[in-house]
C-alpha cells in the first residue's frame, strides 16, 4: 500500500547560490554509511572505558611486557621457489607501474566523467584506501612494489643521491606531502585531467628528490605513501624480510605486535601519525550538520555583525573564507592532538614523578595510538572500497570511458556490493573497540618498560586511558552525528 507523503517543488535559487558545492565533501566518492544509532555510540564509549580498566587489571606484570613477542616463520621454501620461477615480483611490479601509467594517460585523454574514467577510482579508492588496508593485512609489500621506487630503480647512479639527507628535515617532507594530499582529497574537487597532472607533478617531485637525496633516504623519510604504508604495515600479522643469506623470510605474528618495543623515531613522524588520526576525524566532523551550521548558521553571532547580513546570504564572498577556515582547521588538527597527547603525558609524569621528559614519553608512547588511527580510518572508508572500489573491475574493461569492453566486464548495470546498514554499524563499533583495546594494551606494555615499578606503570596509565577513551569516544560520536545533505 502506498501512502503519498508529499509532492514537493524543490525550488531553484534558494539564495541564488550553489550551496550544493559546500556540501560536496570529497574529491571523489562518498561513503554511503548512515549515522550510527545513538545507543550504539553510547555502548561503544562505555565499553571502551570498561575494557580499558579490565586490561589494566589483568595485564600488570612487568615480565609479561619484557617477554619477546612471538613470530612464526611461514611459507614453504618451495613456495618461494615457485614465486621466483614465475617471476612474481617482476610481474607485480609491472602491474603496479602499468596501472599508474594507465591512470595518468586515461586522465589526460579519457572521458572526464569522474565515475567513467579509470583513474579516479584507481587512485582515490584502490590505491589510497585499498593499498592502506593491504598493508594492514599483508605488511610491508609497498616497500618492494612502490611504483616510483620501481620506476627509478634501473637508474642506479641517478638514484644514489647527491648529498646526505639533512637530519633536521626528518619526516617533515612526508608530513607536508600528506597534508597536501588530504587537502586535495577534501577540497581539491579533482577531475580525471587534474588528477593526472597531480600524479605527473608527484612523479617529478619524487624524481628530483631521489636525484638529490637518493632513493634510500627519500623513500624512507619523504615519499608520503612509503611513510604511511610503512606505519600501517607495522600492525600487520605478516612481515616479510630478507634474511642474512639473502633468502626471503615470511613471518606470522600477532596483529599489532609489530608496534611493541618500538619508539617513534622523530617528532615529525609523531605528527604524521597524529595527522592520520586527526584528518580522519576532521573529515568525519566536517560532513556533519553540526560543523556546517557552526559556520553558516552563525550561532554565536560573530559573522553577522561583521558582514551586516546573515552569512548564508553572503555565500559567494564567504566561500573562499570558508575553504580557508576549513584548511586551517585541518592543518592545525594534528598539533591540537599533539597538545592533548602531551598534556595527558604530562599528567602521567606528575603522577609517576618520572625523570623522562614529556617529549621522550611522547616518542615512547606514540605508536600506541596507531591502532586507534587505523581502525578509525577503516570504519570511515571501508564501505567506499565496496561501493566504489569494486567497480575497478568494470573500469579496467573501459579505462578511458569510451564505451569499450575489453574483458567483457565493463559497467553493465551490475550493482555494487553494499552490506546491510546494521552490519556496518556493528562492524564500526567492534572495529573501534578492537583498536582501542590494542592501543591500551600497547601503552600499558610500554609503561611497564618505561617505569621502574608496576605501581608507577599502572598509575601512569590513568591519564593515558582517559585520553584514549576521549579519542575513541569522539570517534564514535562523530560517526553518530547527523550529516549535512
Amino acid at each position, binding site marked *: 500500500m502506498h*501512502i503519498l*507523503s508529499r509532492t514537493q517543488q524543490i525550488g*531553484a535559487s534558494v539564495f541564488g547560490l550553489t550551496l550544493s558545492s559546500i556540501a560536496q565533501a570529497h574529491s571523489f566518492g562518498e561513503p554511503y554509511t548512515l549515522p550510527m544509532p545513538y545507543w550504539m555510540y553510547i*555502548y561503544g564509549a562505555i565499553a571502551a572505558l570498561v575494557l580499558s580498566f579490565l586490561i589494566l587489571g589483568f595485564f600488570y606484570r612487568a615480565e609479561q611486557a619484557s617477554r619477546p613477542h612471538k613470530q612464526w616463520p611461514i611459507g614453504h621454501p618451495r613456495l618461494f621457489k615457485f614465486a621466483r620461477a614465475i617471476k612474481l615480483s617482476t610481474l607485480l611490479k609491472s602491474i603496479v607501474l602499468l596501472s599508474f601509467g594507465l591512470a595518468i594517460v586515461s586522465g589526460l585523454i579519457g572521458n572526464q566523467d569522474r565515475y567513467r574514467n579509470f583513474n579516479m577510482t584507481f587512485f582515490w579508492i584502490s590505491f589510497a584506501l585499498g593499498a592502506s588496508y593491504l598493508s594492514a593485512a599483508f605488511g610491508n609489500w609497498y616497500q618492494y612494489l612502490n611504483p616510483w621506487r620501481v620506476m627509478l630503480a634501473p637508474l642506479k647512479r641517478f638514484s644514489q643521491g647527491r648529498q646526505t639527507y639533512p637530519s633536521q628535515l626528518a619526516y617533515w617532507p612526508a608530513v607536508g606531502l600528506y597534508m597536501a594530499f588530504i587537502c586535495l582529497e577534501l577540497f581539491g574537487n579533482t577531475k580525471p585531467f587534474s588528477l593526472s597532472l597531480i600524479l605527473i607533478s608527484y612523479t617529478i617531485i619524487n624524481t628530483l628528490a631521489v636525484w638529490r637525496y637518493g632513493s634510500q633516504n627519500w623513500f624512507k623519510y619523504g615519499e608520503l605513501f612509503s611513510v604511511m604504508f610503512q606505519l600501517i604495515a607495522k600492525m600487520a600479522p605478516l612481515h616479510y624480510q630478507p634474511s642474512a643469506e639473502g633468502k626471503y623470510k615470511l613471518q606470522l605474528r600477532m596483529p599489532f605486535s609489530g608496534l611493541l618495543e618500538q619508539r617513534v623515531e622523530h617528532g615529525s613522524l609523531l605528527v604524521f601519525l597524529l595527522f592520520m588520526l586527526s584528518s580522519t576525524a576532521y573529515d568525519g566532523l566536517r560532513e556533519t550538520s553540526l560543523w556546517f551550521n557552526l559556520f553558516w548558521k552563525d550561532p554565536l553571532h560573530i559573522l553577522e555583525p561583521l558582514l551586516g547580513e546573515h552569512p548564508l546570504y553572503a555565500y559567494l564572498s564567504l566561500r573562499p573564507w570558508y575553504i580557508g577556515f576549513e584548511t586551517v582547521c585541518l592543518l592545525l588538527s594534528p598539533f591540537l592532538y599533539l597538545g592533548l597527547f602531551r598534556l595527558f603525558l604530562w599528567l602521567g609524569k606528575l603522577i609517576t614523578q618520572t625523570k623522562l621528559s614529556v617529549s621522550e614519553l611522547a616518542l615512547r608512547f606514540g605508536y600506541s595510538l596507531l591502532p586507534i588511527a587505523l581502525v578509525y580510518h577503516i570504519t570511515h572508508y571501508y564501505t567506499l572500497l565496496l561501493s566504489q572500489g569494486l567497480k575497478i573491475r568494470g573500469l579496467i574493461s573501459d579505462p578511458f570511458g569510451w564505451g569499450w569492453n575489453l574483458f567483457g566486464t565493463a559497467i553493465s548495470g551490475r550493482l*555494487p556490493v553494499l552490506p546491510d*546498514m546494521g552490519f556496518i554499524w556493528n562492524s564500526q563499533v567492534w572495529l573501534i573497540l578492537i583498536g582501542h583495546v590494542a592501543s591500551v594494551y600497547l601503552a600499558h606494555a610500554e609503561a611497564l618498560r618505561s617505569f621502574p615499578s608496576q605501581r608507577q606503570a599502572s598509575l601512569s596509565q590513568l591519564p593515558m586511558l582517559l585520553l584514549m577513551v576521549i579519542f575513541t569516544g569522539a570517534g564514535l560520536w562523530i560517526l553518530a552525528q547527523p550529516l549535512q*545533505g
Partner: protein
Amino acid sequence: MRHKLVFIGCAALLLGGLWLLLKPSSQPAIAATTTLHEYNFVVNGHYESQRIRVTQGDTVKIEIRSTQNDQLHLHGIDKHLHIAADTPLNFEFVASQPGRFALELHDSGIQLATFEVYPH
C-alpha cells in the same frame, strides 16, 4: 593462560551485559506500508542540495527539468540517465538499499539531493 581466559570471560560478560542493557527493545513490525515520495527539481544553474529522508522499501518518483543538457547519476542504484535541456525527465525507483546516496548532475557538477534511506 588462565589469566587470559579469565580476562576474555570477564570482557565477554561485561560487553554482553552492557549490550543487552542498552539495546532498545525492538518494535513489533508495523503493517507493511510503503510511502510514495514525489519530488520535482528545477535546475537553472543555482541549486541547494536537499537531504531527503525515506524508509527502506519506499518508492521515490522524480521529475527533473534542467536548462542545459546533462548526465544524471543516482549513486547506490547506479542509474545513469541523460537529461535533454528543457525537457522534463521522469523516473522512479524503490529505495531498497539503506544508505546515503547522492543524486548528481555530472556535467554541471551539481548535487541535487542526498537520499538517506533508513532501514525499517
